[in-house]
């Protein structure tokens, strides 16, 4: 199979000198998949919302039967456009939205879909979220010290006399040094990048095993995005954190992630090692995304026309079958009858498309 030789070539390029330091000691996807207990195991996760007026009720299918697992110390990038359900996925896993159906296992432990307050607290001590907007996700009335110390108390991480030392240590870990400078400040006294670091510090304070980062860099200026991404990569390395990196930016996802999952209209449609998904996208939608992303490196000396028709479907009236079929240049009649099953197209690389 030509496919196998191609993928072995790309996997050898993964072992660049810098990668060894990033990935050397921690599980890479292949190992992580077969590892003992994944950090996160989600099956059939579904979220619907009731909308519309009386007499004309409608159901928004924000997320439809998503299966995704994240290995220990693995970073999975979840990529999709606005409204694709990627944030709903992260928020459902964090139980900020109550899932309609499905199972969520964290460290092998299933959480009930109607958890008690105690169960919920235990769940959140293991799963923490970093939000997109650092300008609104911190309480403006509280100092940084409060934001970071609060989870220590809520989740009973350590005796309270140790809290100041732990807060200092966490602030140092996220690069807010010296910590004493920041403890007494309010969010408005910090820049966007510094605020996002506080957001990460707050999440780390709960000592989670899984971080859900929902577009953590998209509100930040280009020049500081990379610094935040590097900090997250360092944290994975030093603390063995697992991470879901939700983004609409393919380049950012490929920089951060071991594996990439692509979402369209609430459906996961392709999943695989980041390099393989980037260099050989299989699903027609992934190929469309890949072509749409600015790519100066291969721009010069090449004149390409970008063809795209239609828009993502109305989530209250999803088309029968594959949600991408109405826009897909290669759609066949079978695409319009049922959502295609997962097919393997390479090592750990699978796609939900009848073309393979």
């Amino acid at each position: 199979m030509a496919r196998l030789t191609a993928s072995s070539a790309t996997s050898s390029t993964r072992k660049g000198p810098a990668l060894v330091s990033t990935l050397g000691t921690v599980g890479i996807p292949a190992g992580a998949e077969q590892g003992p207990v994944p950090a996160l195991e989600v099956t059939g996760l579904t979220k619907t919302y009731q909308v519309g007026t009386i007499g004309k009720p409608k159901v928004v299918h924000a997320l439809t039967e998503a299966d995704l697992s994240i290995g220990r110390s693995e970073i999975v990038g979840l990529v999709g456009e606005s409204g694709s359900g990627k944030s709903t996925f992260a928020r459902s896993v964090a139980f900020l939205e109550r899932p309609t159906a499905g199972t969520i296992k964290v460290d092998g432990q299933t959480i009930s879909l109607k958890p008690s307050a105690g169960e919920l607290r235990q769940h959140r001590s293991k799963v923490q979220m970093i939000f997109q907007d650092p300008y609104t996700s911190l309480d403006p009335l509280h100092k940084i010290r409060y934001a970071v110390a609060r989870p220590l108390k809520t989740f009973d991480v350590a005796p309270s006399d140790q809290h100041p030392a732990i807060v200092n240590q966490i602030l140092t870990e996220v690069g807010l040094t010296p910590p004493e400078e920041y403890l007494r400040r309010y969010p408005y006294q910090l820049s966007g990048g510094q605020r996002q670091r506080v957001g990460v510090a707050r999440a780390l304070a709960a000592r989670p095993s899984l971080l859900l980062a929902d577009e953590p860099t998209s509100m930040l200026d280009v020049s500081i995005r990379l610094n935040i991404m590097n900090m997250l990569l360092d944290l994975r390395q030093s603390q063995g954190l697992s991470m879901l990196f939700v983004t609409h930016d393919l380049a950012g996802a490929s920089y951060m992630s071991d594996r990439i999952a692509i979402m369209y209209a609430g459906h996961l449609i392709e999943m695989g090692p980041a390099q393989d998904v980037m260099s050989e996208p299989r699903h027609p939608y992934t190929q469309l995304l890949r072509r749409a992303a600015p790519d100066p490196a291969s721009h010069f000396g090449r004149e390409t026309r970008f063809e795209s028709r239609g828009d993502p479907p109305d989530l209250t009236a999803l088309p029968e079958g594959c949600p991408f079929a109405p826009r897909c240049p290669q759609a066949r009649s079978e695409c319009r009858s049922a959502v295609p099953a997962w097919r393997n197209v390479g090592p750990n690389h699978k796609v939900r498309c009848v073309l393979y």
Partner: protein
Amino acid sequence: MAPLLELRDLHVGYGWDAKSTTTIVRGVNLTVDEGEVVGVAGESGCGKTTLANAAAGLLEPPGRITGGSILFQGRDLLNIPAEEMRQLHLAQISMVFQASMNILNPVMRIRSQFWDAMKVHGVSSEDEAMERAREMFDRVKLPRQFLDAYPHQLSGGMRQRAVIALSLVLKPKLVFLDEPTTALDVVVQRSIVQMLNELRQDLGFGVMFITHDLSLLVEIADKIAIMYAGAIVEEAPAQQLYEAPDHPYTKSLMTAFPPLGSARTRMEGLPGTPPDMRSLPAGCAFTPRCPSAIEGVCDRVPPPEMTDGQAHRVVCHLLDQKGASVG
């Protein structure tokens, strides 16, 4: 031939009098030729939007032009009567703002908003106005029936197309695009950028494209100017700037976004933050963040402008020290 737009030593500040004014744009020289796409890139707060607003004659108090001149087709825009400026807007010079899909009036049908704009500029019959609006809708690939729609009935990408159609309906010579695709998804962004490029080839207008997304700019601009702390630090044809940037700031910006699809290697971002415009460092404003700053020179003396005699210019001490010109 005179350039379409020429900015000469333009200074723009914010403040009510000379004493309290903070200068945001510091001595910008830039030209846009007919049919040319000139990109201006830089971090938030570098003055790129202020520059575009000033050049388009849209600066509102307390914004003030404190020095220099703006020549549009050879005429000094700073010294023409307000009414004449009003006539130039939309007809000759138009602007698409960031998130401008939200500038449409939500309680008016889109056709009325086209008619309103054209009435001001001497289109006398509504039939003619609608004929031109329909033609523009075809060009931006929006179905004509959406002229009768209210803005909320359109998606964000469609609204942005409608706004672009509105800004081009009087066939202006010069269009300012201030982050026109930043709020949009990547697929929509790509089709709008491609559409703008086709429109420019058909209609022949010049563009000043403002963005922080250098990777996008490299693909669409003929010429790129990099702005830092209110001044242009490097300017070159797009390909030359991408392949052989000379200013340390440009180099850092180039590595600030991860490339698509290449092997995963660790990249370092840009350390530090932009300077406070109220108290700029002496010498070169980039010195505190510059990895190759020369002590005693960069932090004391304003950097010289070096040029390769053609289109590439850099404002930096390093090239001066090497005794080499750019190129």
